[in-house]
Protein backbone atom coordinates (compact mmCIF):
# COMPACT_ATOMS: atom_id res chain seq x y z
CA UNK A 1 0.00 0.00 0.00
CA UNK A 2 1.85 2.99 -1.23
CA UNK A 3 -1.01 5.22 -0.28
CA UNK A 4 0.19 5.52 3.27
CA UNK A 5 3.15 7.53 2.17
CA UNK A 6 4.03 9.45 5.30
CA UNK A 7 7.55 8.12 5.26
CA UNK A 8 9.83 8.97 8.10
CA UNK A 9 12.92 8.14 6.07
CA UNK A 10 12.96 9.97 2.79
CA UNK A 11 16.30 8.59 1.58
CA UNK A 12 15.23 5.28 0.01
CA UNK A 13 12.50 6.73 -2.12
CA UNK A 14 10.90 3.38 -2.77
CA UNK A 15 9.84 2.49 0.76
CA UNK A 16 6.84 0.24 0.41
CA UNK A 17 5.99 -0.46 4.01
CA UNK A 18 6.07 2.55 6.24
CA UNK A 19 5.75 2.39 9.96
CA UNK A 20 2.42 4.09 9.55
CA UNK A 21 0.90 1.42 7.34
CA UNK A 22 2.37 -1.26 9.56
CA UNK A 23 0.74 0.34 12.59
CA UNK A 24 -2.51 0.52 10.68
CA UNK A 25 -2.57 -3.14 9.66
CA UNK A 26 -1.29 -4.43 12.97
CA UNK A 27 -3.90 -2.44 14.88
CA UNK A 28 -6.58 -3.63 12.51
CA UNK A 29 -5.54 -7.25 13.05
CA UNK A 30 -5.51 -6.82 16.82
CA UNK A 31 -8.94 -5.16 16.81
CA UNK A 32 -10.25 -8.03 14.66
CA UNK A 33 -8.89 -10.57 17.09
CA UNK A 34 -10.37 -8.75 20.03
CA UNK A 35 -13.80 -8.52 18.43
CA UNK A 36 -13.72 -12.13 17.30
CA UNK A 37 -12.52 -13.51 20.60
CA UNK A 38 -14.37 -11.42 23.14
CA UNK A 39 -17.69 -10.40 21.79
CA UNK A 40 -18.52 -12.87 19.04
CA UNK A 41 -19.28 -9.69 17.14
CA UNK A 42 -17.96 -11.08 13.92
CA UNK A 43 -20.47 -13.89 13.46
CA UNK A 44 -21.73 -12.41 10.22
CA UNK A 45 -18.27 -11.63 8.90
CA UNK A 46 -17.27 -15.22 9.67
CA UNK A 47 -20.35 -16.50 7.92
CA UNK A 48 -19.56 -14.51 4.80
CA UNK A 49 -15.90 -15.46 4.83
CA UNK A 50 -16.68 -19.13 5.15
CA UNK A 51 -19.02 -18.78 2.18
CA UNK A 52 -16.12 -17.28 0.24
CA UNK A 53 -13.86 -20.10 1.34
CA UNK A 54 -16.26 -22.80 0.25
CA UNK A 55 -15.22 -22.90 -3.45
CA UNK A 56 -11.58 -23.41 -2.47
CA UNK A 57 -12.56 -26.12 -0.03
CA UNK A 58 -14.53 -27.79 -2.79
CA UNK A 59 -11.55 -27.54 -5.13
CA UNK A 60 -9.22 -29.08 -2.56
CA UNK A 61 -11.73 -31.83 -1.88
CA UNK A 62 -12.40 -32.54 -5.55
CA UNK A 63 -9.58 -35.05 -6.25
CA UNK A 64 -10.79 -37.29 -3.42
CA UNK A 65 -14.39 -36.84 -4.47
CA UNK A 66 -13.53 -37.66 -8.08
CA UNK A 67 -11.63 -40.76 -6.99
CA UNK A 68 -14.57 -41.92 -4.90
CA UNK A 69 -16.93 -41.34 -7.78
CA UNK A 70 -14.67 -43.26 -10.17
CA UNK A 71 -14.38 -46.14 -7.76
CA UNK A 72 -18.11 -46.22 -7.26
CA UNK A 73 -18.91 -46.18 -10.92
CA UNK A 74 -16.42 -48.91 -11.74
CA UNK A 75 -17.39 -51.13 -8.83
CA UNK A 76 -17.93 -54.61 -10.13
CA UNK A 77 -21.09 -56.58 -9.78
CA UNK A 78 -19.31 -58.95 -7.37
CA UNK A 79 -18.30 -56.18 -4.96
CA UNK A 80 -21.76 -54.68 -5.03
CA UNK A 81 -23.34 -58.05 -4.33
CA UNK A 82 -20.93 -58.72 -1.49
CA UNK A 83 -21.64 -55.28 -0.06
CA UNK A 84 -25.35 -55.82 -0.38
CA UNK A 85 -25.15 -59.16 1.40
CA UNK A 86 -23.08 -57.67 4.21
CA UNK A 87 -25.52 -54.79 4.64
CA UNK A 88 -28.47 -57.17 4.70
CA UNK A 89 -26.81 -59.28 7.37
CA UNK A 90 -26.09 -56.17 9.41
CA UNK A 91 -29.64 -54.97 8.98
CA UNK A 92 -30.98 -58.30 10.18
CA UNK A 93 -28.76 -58.20 13.24
CA UNK A 94 -29.90 -54.68 14.04
CA UNK A 95 -33.54 -55.64 13.59
CA UNK A 96 -33.11 -58.55 15.95
CA UNK A 97 -31.57 -56.27 18.51
CA UNK A 98 -34.42 -53.78 18.32
CA UNK A 99 -37.17 -56.42 18.39
CA UNK A 100 -37.64 -56.07 22.10
CA UNK A 101 -37.11 -52.31 22.02
CA UNK A 102 -40.82 -51.48 22.19
CA UNK A 103 -41.41 -53.84 25.08
CA UNK A 104 -38.38 -52.53 26.91
CA UNK A 105 -39.50 -48.95 26.45
CA UNK A 106 -42.87 -49.70 27.98
CA UNK A 107 -41.25 -51.64 30.78
CA UNK A 108 -38.88 -48.76 31.42
CA UNK A 109 -41.74 -46.33 31.51
CA UNK A 110 -43.55 -48.51 34.04
CA UNK A 111 -40.46 -48.76 36.17
CA UNK A 112 -40.14 -45.01 36.10
CA UNK A 113 -43.82 -44.76 36.94
CA UNK A 114 -44.62 -42.86 33.81
CA UNK A 115 -47.86 -43.45 32.05
CA UNK A 116 -46.63 -43.82 28.50
CA UNK A 117 -43.35 -44.67 26.93
CA UNK A 118 -41.28 -41.63 26.08
CA UNK A 119 -40.90 -40.71 22.44
CA UNK A 120 -37.52 -40.95 20.82
CA UNK A 121 -35.12 -38.24 21.88
CA UNK A 122 -33.77 -37.73 18.37
CA UNK A 123 -36.30 -36.01 16.14
CA UNK A 124 -34.22 -35.51 13.04
CA UNK A 125 -30.88 -36.48 11.70
CA UNK A 126 -28.83 -35.42 8.75
CA UNK A 127 -25.88 -37.35 7.35
CA UNK A 128 -22.93 -35.30 6.10
CA UNK A 129 -19.60 -36.09 4.57
CA UNK A 130 -16.24 -35.08 5.95
CA UNK A 131 -14.38 -32.95 3.43
CA UNK A 132 -10.72 -33.50 2.83
CA UNK A 133 -9.50 -30.23 4.28
CA UNK A 134 -6.74 -30.01 6.78
CA UNK A 135 -7.43 -27.38 9.38
CA UNK A 136 -4.55 -27.49 11.73
CA UNK A 137 -2.10 -30.29 12.17
CA UNK A 138 -2.14 -30.58 15.92
CA UNK A 139 -5.84 -30.06 16.37
CA UNK A 140 -8.65 -32.50 15.83
CA UNK A 141 -11.16 -30.67 13.71
CA UNK A 142 -12.87 -31.47 10.46
CA UNK A 143 -14.89 -29.64 7.84
CA UNK A 144 -18.12 -31.27 6.72
CA UNK A 145 -20.22 -30.54 3.68
CA UNK A 146 -23.45 -29.45 5.35
CA UNK A 147 -23.98 -26.05 6.84
CA UNK A 148 -26.49 -23.54 8.10
CA UNK A 149 -28.51 -23.83 4.89
CA UNK A 150 -29.30 -27.40 5.96
CA UNK A 151 -30.20 -26.27 9.46
CA UNK A 152 -26.90 -27.04 11.16
CA UNK A 153 -26.22 -24.74 14.11
CA UNK A 154 -23.37 -23.93 16.42
CA UNK A 155 -23.03 -26.30 19.34
CA UNK A 156 -24.96 -29.11 17.69
CA UNK A 157 -24.02 -32.66 18.63
CA UNK A 158 -22.42 -34.76 15.89
CA UNK A 159 -22.52 -38.55 15.93
CA UNK A 160 -20.78 -41.17 13.85
CA UNK A 161 -21.11 -44.91 13.63
CA UNK A 162 -20.04 -46.21 17.02
CA UNK A 163 -20.72 -43.15 19.10
CA UNK A 164 -20.31 -39.49 19.71
CA UNK A 165 -17.76 -37.75 17.52
CA UNK A 166 -17.95 -34.03 18.34
CA UNK A 167 -19.92 -30.83 18.11
CA UNK A 168 -20.30 -28.01 15.61
CA UNK A 169 -17.82 -25.25 16.29
CA UNK A 170 -18.78 -22.96 13.44
CA UNK A 171 -21.51 -23.25 10.88
CA UNK A 172 -20.98 -21.63 7.51
CA UNK A 173 -23.69 -21.50 4.88
CA UNK A 174 -22.72 -24.73 3.12
CA UNK A 175 -20.07 -26.21 5.33
CA UNK A 176 -19.45 -26.51 9.03
CA UNK A 177 -16.42 -26.91 11.22
CA UNK A 178 -16.72 -29.76 13.71
CA UNK A 179 -14.51 -29.97 16.77
CA UNK A 180 -13.90 -33.63 17.59
CA UNK A 181 -14.03 -35.04 21.09
CA UNK A 182 -10.32 -35.80 20.80
CA UNK A 183 -9.32 -32.16 20.28
CA UNK A 184 -7.15 -30.92 23.15
CA UNK A 185 -9.58 -28.07 23.69
CA UNK A 186 -12.65 -30.25 23.91
CA UNK A 187 -14.20 -31.87 26.94
CA UNK A 188 -17.27 -34.11 27.18
CA UNK A 189 -19.21 -34.65 30.39
CA UNK A 190 -19.41 -38.44 30.65
CA UNK A 191 -20.72 -41.09 32.94
CA UNK A 192 -19.38 -44.55 33.61
CA UNK A 193 -22.26 -46.77 32.52
CA UNK A 194 -21.51 -49.50 35.06
CA UNK A 195 -21.18 -47.39 38.18
CA UNK A 196 -22.92 -44.16 37.26
CA UNK A 197 -19.81 -42.19 38.13
CA UNK A 198 -19.79 -38.78 36.43
CA UNK A 199 -16.68 -37.08 35.18
CA UNK A 200 -15.23 -35.26 32.19
CA UNK A 201 -13.37 -36.78 29.25
CA UNK A 202 -10.80 -34.50 27.67
CA UNK A 203 -9.23 -34.86 24.23
CA UNK A 204 -5.51 -35.21 23.74
CA UNK A 205 -5.01 -34.13 20.15
CA UNK A 206 -4.66 -37.76 19.16
CA UNK A 207 -7.43 -39.66 17.39
CA UNK A 208 -7.23 -42.74 19.58
CA UNK A 209 -6.93 -41.33 23.09
CA UNK A 210 -8.98 -39.39 25.60
CA UNK A 211 -8.15 -38.85 29.24
CA UNK A 212 -10.28 -38.57 32.36
CA UNK A 213 -8.12 -36.24 34.40
CA UNK A 214 -10.48 -35.45 37.28
CA UNK A 215 -11.01 -38.85 38.92
CA UNK A 216 -9.77 -39.51 42.46
CA UNK A 217 -7.59 -42.56 43.00
CA UNK A 218 -10.34 -44.47 44.79
CA UNK A 219 -13.05 -43.89 42.20
CA UNK A 220 -14.98 -46.86 40.87
CA UNK A 221 -13.65 -47.28 37.35
CA UNK A 222 -12.12 -50.29 35.62
CA UNK A 223 -10.57 -51.10 32.29
CA UNK A 224 -13.26 -51.85 29.66
CA UNK A 225 -15.85 -49.65 31.33
CA UNK A 226 -18.12 -47.95 28.84
CA UNK A 227 -18.34 -44.17 29.04
CA UNK A 228 -21.59 -42.57 27.87
CA UNK A 229 -22.56 -38.93 27.74
CA UNK A 230 -24.03 -37.78 31.04
CA UNK A 231 -26.30 -35.12 29.60
CA UNK A 232 -24.81 -32.37 31.72
CA UNK A 233 -23.24 -29.33 30.13
CA UNK A 234 -26.07 -28.49 27.79
CA UNK A 235 -24.66 -29.80 24.53
CA UNK A 236 -24.84 -33.56 24.35
CA UNK A 237 -27.87 -35.67 25.24
CA UNK A 238 -27.58 -38.34 27.89
CA UNK A 239 -26.70 -41.92 27.13
CA UNK A 240 -24.70 -41.81 23.91
CA UNK A 241 -21.59 -43.99 23.92
CA UNK A 242 -18.35 -42.02 23.88
CA UNK A 243 -15.36 -44.17 24.74
CA UNK A 244 -14.12 -47.31 26.43
CA UNK A 245 -11.61 -47.18 29.25
CA UNK A 246 -8.29 -48.70 28.21
CA UNK A 247 -6.01 -47.91 31.09
CA UNK A 248 -6.41 -47.06 34.76
CA UNK A 249 -3.31 -46.01 36.64
CA UNK A 250 -3.57 -45.64 40.40
CA UNK A 251 -0.53 -44.20 42.07
CA UNK A 252 -1.09 -43.97 45.83
CA UNK A 253 1.19 -40.96 45.93
CA UNK A 254 -1.05 -39.01 43.59
CA UNK A 255 -4.44 -37.59 44.46
CA UNK A 256 -5.91 -38.42 41.07
CA UNK A 257 -6.02 -41.57 38.98
CA UNK A 258 -4.62 -41.57 35.48
CA UNK A 259 -7.35 -42.90 33.27
CA UNK A 260 -7.22 -43.22 29.51
CA UNK A 261 -10.00 -44.19 27.17
CA UNK A 262 -10.39 -44.93 23.50
CA UNK A 263 -13.18 -43.21 21.56
CA UNK A 264 -15.71 -45.63 20.12
CA UNK A 265 -16.29 -43.72 16.91
CA UNK A 266 -13.61 -44.28 14.29
CA UNK A 267 -12.59 -40.68 14.48
CA UNK A 268 -9.75 -40.68 11.99
CA UNK A 269 -11.34 -43.05 9.50
CA UNK A 270 -15.01 -42.21 9.34
CA UNK A 271 -15.89 -40.13 6.31
CA UNK A 272 -19.55 -39.91 7.28
CA UNK A 273 -20.96 -38.12 10.27
CA UNK A 274 -24.52 -37.42 11.39
CA UNK A 275 -25.96 -34.22 12.76
CA UNK A 276 -28.79 -34.82 15.21
CA UNK A 277 -31.65 -32.70 16.50
CA UNK A 278 -33.23 -33.49 19.85
CA UNK A 279 -36.71 -33.19 21.17
CA UNK A 280 -36.64 -30.26 23.54
CA UNK A 281 -37.98 -31.09 26.97
CA UNK A 282 -37.16 -34.78 26.69
CA UNK A 283 -35.47 -36.08 29.87
CA UNK A 284 -32.49 -37.31 27.88
CA UNK A 285 -32.13 -34.16 25.81
CA UNK A 286 -29.35 -31.77 26.73
CA UNK A 287 -30.44 -29.13 29.20
CA UNK A 288 -29.41 -25.72 27.90
CA UNK A 289 -27.26 -23.79 30.32
CA UNK A 290 -29.24 -21.12 32.07
CA UNK A 291 -27.22 -18.00 31.51
CA UNK A 292 -23.89 -17.42 29.81
CA UNK A 293 -23.09 -19.42 26.72
CA UNK A 294 -20.04 -21.61 27.23
CA UNK A 295 -16.79 -20.64 25.53
CA UNK A 296 -16.59 -22.08 22.03
CA UNK A 297 -13.88 -24.63 22.60
CA UNK A 298 -15.12 -25.99 25.86
CA UNK A 299 -18.83 -25.91 25.26
CA UNK A 300 -19.17 -29.49 26.42
CA UNK A 301 -17.62 -28.89 29.81
CA UNK A 302 -19.49 -27.47 32.75
CA UNK A 303 -18.47 -24.00 33.73
CA UNK A 304 -17.43 -25.02 37.21
CA UNK A 305 -15.07 -27.75 36.07
CA UNK A 306 -12.27 -28.11 38.56
CA UNK A 307 -9.02 -26.59 37.40
CA UNK A 308 -6.63 -29.09 35.94
CA UNK A 309 -4.58 -30.29 38.89
CA UNK A 310 -0.85 -30.56 38.72
CA UNK A 311 -0.55 -34.22 37.92
CA UNK A 312 2.76 -35.51 36.73
CA UNK A 313 2.32 -36.68 33.14
Amino acid at each position, binding site marked *: *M*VAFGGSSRPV*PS*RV*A*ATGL*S*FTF*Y*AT*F*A*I*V*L*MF*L*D*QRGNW*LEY*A*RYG*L*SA*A*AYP*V*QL*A*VNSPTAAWDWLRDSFATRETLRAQNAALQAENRALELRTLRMEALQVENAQLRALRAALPEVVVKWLPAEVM*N*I*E*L*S*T*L*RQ*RVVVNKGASAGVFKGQAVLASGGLIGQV*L*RAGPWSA*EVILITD*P*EHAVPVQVLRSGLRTIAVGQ*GNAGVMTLPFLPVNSDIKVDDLLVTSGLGGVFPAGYPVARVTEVGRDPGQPLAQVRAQPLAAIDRDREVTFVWFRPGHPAAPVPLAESAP*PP*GLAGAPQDAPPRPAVAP
Partner: protein
Amino acid sequence: MNARVHEPRGAMLLAAFIALIFQVVPLPDWLALVRPAFLVIVVLYWSISAPRAGGLFFPFLCGLALDVFRGAVLGEHALALVIVAFLAIRMHLLIRNKPLFEQALIAFAALALYEFVVWCIDGFSGHTLNSGLRWLHPITGGLLWPVVCGLLSRTHRPR
Protein backbone atom coordinates in the same frame (compact mmCIF):
# COMPACT_ATOMS: atom_id res chain seq x y z
CA MET B 1 7.05 4.84 -17.98
CA ASN B 2 5.20 4.03 -14.86
CA ALA B 3 7.02 1.54 -12.65
CA ARG B 4 3.76 0.04 -11.50
CA VAL B 5 3.15 -1.62 -14.83
CA HIS B 6 5.88 -4.12 -14.06
CA GLU B 7 4.67 -5.16 -10.67
CA PRO B 8 3.91 -8.89 -10.90
CA ARG B 9 0.54 -8.67 -9.18
CA GLY B 10 -1.05 -11.52 -11.13
CA ALA B 11 1.81 -13.90 -10.40
CA MET B 12 1.64 -12.85 -6.77
CA LEU B 13 -2.01 -13.68 -6.35
CA LEU B 14 -1.73 -16.91 -8.29
CA ALA B 15 1.26 -18.06 -6.24
CA ALA B 16 -0.55 -17.18 -3.02
CA PHE B 17 -3.63 -19.09 -4.13
CA ILE B 18 -1.63 -22.20 -5.00
CA ALA B 19 0.27 -21.93 -1.73
CA LEU B 20 -3.00 -21.71 0.17
CA ILE B 21 -4.22 -24.88 -1.50
CA PHE B 22 -0.98 -26.66 -0.64
CA GLN B 23 -1.42 -25.56 2.91
CA VAL B 24 -4.89 -27.06 3.33
CA VAL B 25 -4.49 -30.24 1.28
CA PRO B 26 -4.76 -33.18 3.66
CA LEU B 27 -1.60 -35.15 4.26
CA PRO B 28 -0.72 -38.11 6.44
CA ASP B 29 0.01 -37.01 9.99
CA TRP B 30 3.77 -37.38 9.94
CA LEU B 31 3.99 -35.45 6.68
CA ALA B 32 1.60 -32.76 7.85
CA LEU B 33 3.86 -32.07 10.80
CA VAL B 34 6.74 -31.09 8.55
CA ARG B 35 4.58 -29.38 5.96
CA PRO B 36 6.17 -25.97 5.39
CA ALA B 37 4.02 -22.88 5.73
CA PHE B 38 3.80 -22.38 1.98
CA LEU B 39 1.79 -19.21 2.11
CA VAL B 40 4.20 -17.56 4.54
CA ILE B 41 7.13 -18.46 2.31
CA VAL B 42 5.38 -17.04 -0.73
CA VAL B 43 4.52 -13.83 1.11
CA LEU B 44 8.12 -13.60 2.27
CA TYR B 45 9.37 -14.05 -1.27
CA TRP B 46 7.18 -11.29 -2.68
CA SER B 47 7.98 -8.98 0.21
CA ILE B 48 11.64 -9.28 -0.64
CA SER B 49 11.56 -9.34 -4.42
CA ALA B 50 8.59 -7.05 -5.14
CA PRO B 51 8.02 -5.03 -1.98
CA ARG B 52 5.98 -2.36 -3.71
CA ALA B 53 3.58 -4.65 -5.49
CA GLY B 54 1.49 -5.64 -2.51
CA GLY B 55 2.81 -3.57 0.34
CA LEU B 56 1.37 -4.78 3.60
CA PHE B 57 -2.10 -5.25 2.20
CA PHE B 58 -1.12 -8.48 0.47
CA PRO B 59 0.30 -10.15 3.62
CA PHE B 60 -2.72 -9.01 5.57
CA LEU B 61 -5.09 -10.54 3.04
CA CYS B 62 -3.15 -13.81 2.94
CA GLY B 63 -3.17 -13.95 6.73
CA LEU B 64 -6.89 -13.40 6.82
CA ALA B 65 -7.37 -16.21 4.32
CA LEU B 66 -5.27 -18.47 6.54
CA ASP B 67 -7.37 -17.52 9.55
CA VAL B 68 -10.55 -18.45 7.75
CA PHE B 69 -9.20 -21.74 6.44
CA ARG B 70 -7.59 -22.88 9.65
CA GLY B 71 -10.47 -21.80 11.84
CA ALA B 72 -8.24 -19.56 13.93
CA VAL B 73 -9.13 -16.32 15.64
CA LEU B 74 -9.68 -13.75 12.87
CA GLY B 75 -6.55 -11.63 12.60
CA GLU B 76 -4.15 -14.11 14.18
CA HIS B 77 -2.23 -15.18 11.12
CA ALA B 78 -2.85 -11.76 9.60
CA LEU B 79 -0.92 -10.06 12.39
CA ALA B 80 1.89 -12.61 12.25
CA LEU B 81 2.23 -12.23 8.48
CA VAL B 82 2.10 -8.42 8.63
CA ILE B 83 4.91 -8.39 11.19
CA VAL B 84 7.08 -10.78 9.19
CA ALA B 85 6.38 -8.98 5.92
CA PHE B 86 7.07 -5.57 7.44
CA LEU B 87 10.52 -6.66 8.59
CA ALA B 88 11.19 -8.34 5.25
CA ILE B 89 10.13 -5.28 3.25
CA ARG B 90 12.18 -2.99 5.44
CA MET B 91 15.27 -5.12 4.84
CA HIS B 92 14.53 -6.35 1.36
CA LEU B 93 17.58 -4.73 -0.21
CA LEU B 94 19.84 -6.37 2.33
CA ILE B 95 18.28 -9.79 2.02
CA ARG B 96 18.04 -9.71 -1.74
CA ASN B 97 21.79 -9.41 -2.15
CA LYS B 98 22.67 -12.29 0.14
CA PRO B 99 23.64 -15.68 -1.26
CA LEU B 100 20.87 -18.23 -1.40
CA PHE B 101 22.16 -20.15 1.58
CA GLU B 102 22.01 -17.11 3.84
CA GLN B 103 18.60 -16.28 2.47
CA ALA B 104 17.42 -19.72 3.49
CA LEU B 105 18.68 -19.07 7.01
CA ILE B 106 16.84 -15.75 7.06
CA ALA B 107 13.68 -17.48 5.82
CA PHE B 108 14.04 -19.97 8.65
CA ALA B 109 14.30 -17.12 11.16
CA ALA B 110 11.30 -15.37 9.63
CA LEU B 111 9.22 -18.56 9.75
CA ALA B 112 10.23 -19.11 13.35
CA LEU B 113 9.20 -15.53 14.16
CA TYR B 114 5.88 -16.14 12.44
CA GLU B 115 5.28 -19.29 14.43
CA PHE B 116 6.30 -17.47 17.60
CA VAL B 117 3.72 -14.73 17.03
CA VAL B 118 1.03 -17.32 16.30
CA TRP B 119 2.06 -19.25 19.40
CA CYS B 120 1.81 -16.12 21.55
CA ILE B 121 -1.64 -15.29 20.21
CA ASP B 122 -2.72 -18.90 20.73
CA GLY B 123 -1.67 -18.53 24.32
CA PHE B 124 -3.39 -15.18 24.81
CA SER B 125 -6.62 -16.39 23.29
CA GLY B 126 -6.68 -19.55 25.38
CA HIS B 127 -5.98 -22.02 22.58
CA THR B 128 -3.06 -23.60 24.34
CA LEU B 129 -1.31 -26.20 22.30
CA ASN B 130 1.80 -27.32 24.10
CA SER B 131 3.28 -29.49 21.42
CA GLY B 132 6.88 -28.87 20.51
CA LEU B 133 6.12 -30.31 17.08
CA ARG B 134 4.75 -26.99 15.89
CA TRP B 135 8.31 -25.68 15.69
CA LEU B 136 9.29 -28.23 13.05
CA HIS B 137 7.93 -26.50 10.00
CA PRO B 138 10.33 -23.52 9.92
CA ILE B 139 13.15 -25.99 9.29
CA THR B 140 11.50 -27.57 6.26
CA GLY B 141 10.42 -24.10 5.18
CA GLY B 142 14.01 -22.88 5.23
CA LEU B 143 15.06 -25.93 3.21
CA LEU B 144 12.33 -25.22 0.70
CA TRP B 145 13.32 -21.57 0.27
CA PRO B 146 15.77 -22.07 -2.64
CA VAL B 147 13.16 -24.11 -4.52
CA VAL B 148 10.48 -21.46 -4.06
CA CYS B 149 12.94 -18.77 -5.13
CA GLY B 150 13.84 -20.71 -8.24
CA LEU B 151 10.20 -21.27 -9.18
CA LEU B 152 8.88 -17.81 -8.41
CA SER B 153 11.76 -15.90 -9.98
CA ARG B 154 10.71 -17.31 -13.34
CA THR B 155 7.30 -15.67 -13.08
CA HIS B 156 8.62 -12.14 -13.17
CA ARG B 157 11.70 -10.16 -14.08
CA PRO B 158 13.74 -10.01 -10.88
CA ARG B 159 15.39 -6.71 -10.22
